[in-house]
């Protein structure tokens, strides 16, 4: 259906282009973009990747003067979209895809035939900290207390969070590893949506909850949950909780989101795309979008992003192996 709308829009806009093309074009060495840019959100509408793609859309359009379209290909932690992107976008700098930490994990747990080394990393955009909470009437006041009991009897502590092998599960795995608990013993209760996990925590079914900070902000403010720690490197402004590191467990994890380019781009093409994304990042509209959505800026582009991505892939693979999701 989206596609139908897209077809309609592209026809309408194609007409606009023909008209625009009649105007004299400014000469420049590398001309990019020269046509409509398509951004794939490899998830259904409403999620974080979709939100990121839709936030990029108007900003890229305004910095390049080109039309930008967003389309969704949902499924399996983004690996369905990734597979389609790898096979259909090859060599085309006008095709972009949003992705992130969850995709890194999903590629490994789903034994995806395609992976992120096949696409061209463009830039890291945003990151969100994870939060560890307990219900308001829980006996745990601090993360140390929770971790002490976790060490004493790992399976007695049930952790409620999102999908198995997702960011929330990975964080619990990292904590277990750091405090010397056999990650195999983690009693992780996976839920299919943020809402379901929040309900499980509020009902007192699980000992503790793990999810993106924004899922819990309102509950914490309303006093129905207690925020024990956040997973960022440093304390977050406006959040009254220590980091996991401050609580004595040397773990930090950010749920990052990034934009990728098509497979097999030439260096010139990649640099041109990176330049556009950098321009987008520097624009006041993007800064406004970050603020509106409550995302932290986590911008890294080019080689810096490449190095970060490689390190994350290795780290995530290690944890997933430890918690027994991949052999």
């Amino acid at each position: 259906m989206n596609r139908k709308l897209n077809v309609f829009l592209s026809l309408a806009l194609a007409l606009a282009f023909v008209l625009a093309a009649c105007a004299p074009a400014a000469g420049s060495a590398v001309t990019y973009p020269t046509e409509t840019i398509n951004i794939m959100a490899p998830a259904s509408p409403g999620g974080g990747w979709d939100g990121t793609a839709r936030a990029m859309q108007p900003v890229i359009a305004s910095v390049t003067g080109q039309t930008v379209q967003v389309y969704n290909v949902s499924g399996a932690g983004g690996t369905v979209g990734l597979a389609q992107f790898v096979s259909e976008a090859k060599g085309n700098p006008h095709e972009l895809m949003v992705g992130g930490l969850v995709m890194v994990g999903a590629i490994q747990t789903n034994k995806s035939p395609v992976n992120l080394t096949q696409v061209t990393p463009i830039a890291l955009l945003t990151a969100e900290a994870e939060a560890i909470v307990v219900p308001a009437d829980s006996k745990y006041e601090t993360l140390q207390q929770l971790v002490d009991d976790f060490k004493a009897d790992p399976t007695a502590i049930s952790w409620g969070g999102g999908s198995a092998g997702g960011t929330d599960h990975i964080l619990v795995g990292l904590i277990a590893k750091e405090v010397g608990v056999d990650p195999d013993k983690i009693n992780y209760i996976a839920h299919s949506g943020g809402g379901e996990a929040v309900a499980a925590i509020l009902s007192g079914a699980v000992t503790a909850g793990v999810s993106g900070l924004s899922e819990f902000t309102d509950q914490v403010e309303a006093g129905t949950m207690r925020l024990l720690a956040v997973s960022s490197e440093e304390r977050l402004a406006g959040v009254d909780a220590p980091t996991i590191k401050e609580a004595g467990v040397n773990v930090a994890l950010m749920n990052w989101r990034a934009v990728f380019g098509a497979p097999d781009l030439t260096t010139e093409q990649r640099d041109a795309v990176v330049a556009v994304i950098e321009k987008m990042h520097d624009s006041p509209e993007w800064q406004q979008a970050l603020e509106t959505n409550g995302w932290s800026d986590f911008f890294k582009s080019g080689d810096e992003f490449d190095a970060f991505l490689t390190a994350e892939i290795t780290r995530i693979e290690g944890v997933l192996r430890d918690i027994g999701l991949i052999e």
Partner: protein
Amino acid sequence: MDVLTNLLHGFASALTLQYLLLAALGVTLGTAIGVLPGIGPALTVALLLPLTYNFDPTGALIMFAGIYYGGMYGGSTTSILLNTPGESASVATTFEGFAMAKSGRGGAALATAAIGSFVAGTISTLLLTFVAPVIARLALLFQPADYFSLTVLAFMSVTALVGKSFLRGMVSLFIGLFIGLIGIDVLTGQPRLTFGLTELLDGIDVVVVAVGLFAVGEALYVASQMRHTKEEILPVKSRVGMTREEWRRSWPAWLRGTLIGFPFGALPAGGAEIPTFLSYTTEKRLSKNKAEWGHGAIEGVAGPEAANNAAFSGVLVPLLTLGLPTSATAAILLVAFQIYNLQPGPLLFQKSPELVWALIASLYIGNVMLLILNLPLIRIWIKILAIPRAVLYAGILVFGTLGVYSISNSFMDVMIMYAIGVLGFFMRRYGFPVGPTILGVILLPMAEAQFRRALSISQGDPSVFFTRPLSLGLLLAATAAVILPYIPALIARLRRKPVKVDRVVFGDGQED
């Protein structure tokens, strides 16, 4: 009363000419898009959401409510006229709805669906207005063990739906379970029954199964019978409304459907499908003319339609009071809120009361608008039935294909739908009821996940199902649901009087 004052303020801000026009526009657009099979209310709203960006929040919400109700009603229209449910919550409507349409009473079926939606929408919005916080607190008492017991109760209540032949019913149910288990296991993240296909990792959408089984299966079956049966011209009685008798029979079904739908919707993991099936079997059990079932009993449309509408207002309870999106539609609604920088949740009523009350007021308005616009449209819709059968079923295939493709732009989904359609054809051909398959897809995987969650939390101790009072109560109710229908027969047997056991048969269509 505080609630009333707030509500009146809500109406004051919602009742202007401009907003009424937006509501009318929303209902019209929603209906128009919602009649495409496979496109349910959630997708309709997602598609039309960008239209609301241009309005102020109140206007957008009003239009949104209109689109939603329109989409919902549009989905029922295709269930009734084309045997093609737009979403899982209107699957139960197809059983009697399409049978009514085939016997020339499509107009009455559409009318009872529209008026039933209105009645249920209004009552459940009233419940939302006055008891939302209480219901939300009760809903939060449910833990995995209780959810499991709830699915047992739901299953036992509809167990009679396996049909005349127990064996065939169970085969059909297990086909559903098989389809329902395909995909990544939510608890362990491991793929099951995916045969290495990436497209199967997220499982098969219930709508794909329903359109395949009902629309494609039925079309193939009809096609296979074409040469053997004379083309019967469907008797299109052009009367659009309901007779006095039909009104009399619809009323209690609407009310019961509402009372079943609302609390289920309010449960964070309740969903809108189960109450429609429960309502269907309740109506069938209570019905005095059981022979009519399968050939178009109006209660079988009135009940489920009321239930799915009431479930929507139910879904708003956890969304508005706790910030929990518990259905696809609620998730989209959450996006709509976020556009205006509002985070539904425990603080929403304090932070932006004007908007919440404007939304609630607009639900009332959307409801009324739906009724006003759609009752006259029924006259046009039922003309569809005058189309010759060959053309009609070809049209059903085209629309079904379009609808299924548009769920996630996936060609694979279309292939799966046709494969399931062929399966549906053989099931019809050899007298297997198709209803239990859908139930297997929806209910059993949910029961499985909750069962394992409960045991995981209790560290493997199964007594959790009996020690939690809520769970125990639900299990006892489930036991009662199994035993009760047999009690009259048992008593009769004790008195040595032969009595036919009154078994409920469900969605078994024509058997030859």
